[in-house]
């Protein structure tokens, strides 16, 4: 809601660093999994501006996760081109890819924290992109990283659990820790793969509120895969529907209502 006014404002202050290149630029993207008969994504084109909040909706298997993972090559695309903030992702060398991933925060449905380690430890690891392997353990991390990790935990409201093992925390708390770890990256783009699908409605709202308000504060681009149309309309500036690996629908969130979006879920039960 409060997110709506953000894109124009943030574009101005980031213009110096990003130039005129869109935050995310995807052309003709194609993905086919090994041994699959059809493409998971076929000839997909997508352009997202810096500071935009985009919701990806679609059924299971529509290609939402594949698209998000592809953007940072956690899945290798079969064909096409991807650029993030003007930097080529497809064909990037290993170190170049690491540098791209460093600027892109990824939030997963199942949090993907390292179990048995404390919340603080997990958040410190978010600095590994910048500082390398020394941040894999808090005891060898520089002091400012440790300070920043505490600030990130405070920002997401779980500073009180810094010393607790993450596998003893609730789902909502774990997702907050995951967001804090992502904040440590100081990302320019946030990709969220069904960040609230494992959470109850109240925590889901709280987590999305948190993620989107942080993104708005810092002018960060957000692409989030969501299952709930209602949440997509509330938190995104723009809604994109995926069906069977192709772009089915693309409109500003203000221009669409739920009845218009429901077919995306209804028709694609193939």
């Amino acid at each position, binding site marked *: 809601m409060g997110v709506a006014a953000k894109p124009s404002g943030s574009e101005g202050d980031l213009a110096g660093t990003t130039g005129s290149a869109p935050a995310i630029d995807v052309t003709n993207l194609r993905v086919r999994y090994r041994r699959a008969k059809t493409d998971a994504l076929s000839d997909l084109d997508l352009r997202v501006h810096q500071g935009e909040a985009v919701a990806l909706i679609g059924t299971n298997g529509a290609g939402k996760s594949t698209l998000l993972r592809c953007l940072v090559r*956690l899945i290798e695309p079969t064909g096409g081109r991807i650029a993030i903030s003007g930097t080529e992702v497809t064909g990037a060398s290993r170190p170049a890819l690491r540098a791209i991933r460093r600027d892109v925060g990824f939030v997963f449905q199942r949090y*993907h924290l*390292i179990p048995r380690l404390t919340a603080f430890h997990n958040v410190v*690891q*978010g600095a*590994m992109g910048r500082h390398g*392997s020394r*941040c*894999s353990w808090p005891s060898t991390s520089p002091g400012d990283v440790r300070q920043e990790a505490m600030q990130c935990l405070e920002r997401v409201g779980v500073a009180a659990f810094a010393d607790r093992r993450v596998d003893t925390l609730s789902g909502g708390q774990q997702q907050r820790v995951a967001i804090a770890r992502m904040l440590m990256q100081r990302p320019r783009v946030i990709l969220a793969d069904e960040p609230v699908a494992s959470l109850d409605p109240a925590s889901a709202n709280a987590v999305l509120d948190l993620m989107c308000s942080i993104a708005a504060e810092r002018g960060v681009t957000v692409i989030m895969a969501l299952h709930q149309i209602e949440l997509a309309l509330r938190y995104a500036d723009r809604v994109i529907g995926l069906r069977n690996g192709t772009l089915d629908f693309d409109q500003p969130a203000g221009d669409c209502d739920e009845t218009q979006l429901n077919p995306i879920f209804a028709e694609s039960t193939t």
Partner: protein
Amino acid sequence: MTEPATRTAPPPRVRRPSLLTLVIVLVVGALLVHGWTEGATVRPDSLLTGVFRLSEFVDDAVPPDVSRVGPILAALLVTVEMALLGTIIGVILSVPLAVMAARNTTPHWSLYGVSRAIITVSRTIPDLIWGLIFVIAVGLGPEAGVLAITVDVMGFCGRFFAESIEDIDPGRIEGLRAIGAPRAGVIVGGVIPACLPSFVTTSMFALESSARSSVVLGLVGAGGIGIELATSMTLLRYDEALTIILAILVVVVAFERLSAAIRRRVLGV
């Protein structure tokens, strides 16, 4: 249309065995018969005389002779220390070996092949033979024993560490890779902490088996209590031998208790 009702008789009592079953039975049978002719037997008459001879041994051995208990305990201490050092070195070497030998963390397929080969060779050659080999290499004494145990532990831990790395939830690694973490950071900060409980329990099993093998390694001159036992036996000092056997029993049981306690704590938390 075949009607189910036409079948009145129950299924046959005995099914004809498959060809594979027949082959297995024939091969095993042939091996047993051949073995019997070669002396791999259990004959009632020799069992009977054997029991009488065993009772002679027991007569001689009881009461155990504790006059040399000092040197025996000293040798036993060395045995325990051999097991400890060998296990520690073996476990430490197993970690990088397992990282290379796990399909999801190996840096390169050639390293995967090499480390798998090292693990297989370490595991398939029995510890006593490693003992013999290292006695040739570094001479008689506990050092050969330590090396033999190290290699034995590498074969055991390398394999099970690698398996537990391969069983790790791929999402957790993906989470760190998405941060842009370097490969070493993913392993040190993610893979190893996530696998730690299974690493500890495996290491404890390795320690138990090292405690047992360090006892026997002395028999081939690789240091420790085994040499004492061999000497007492060849000198027919059965009472002394019994003291040694009892001491070994206590130590091995103690090791097993200790490792069980540690495993329970690690798994329980």
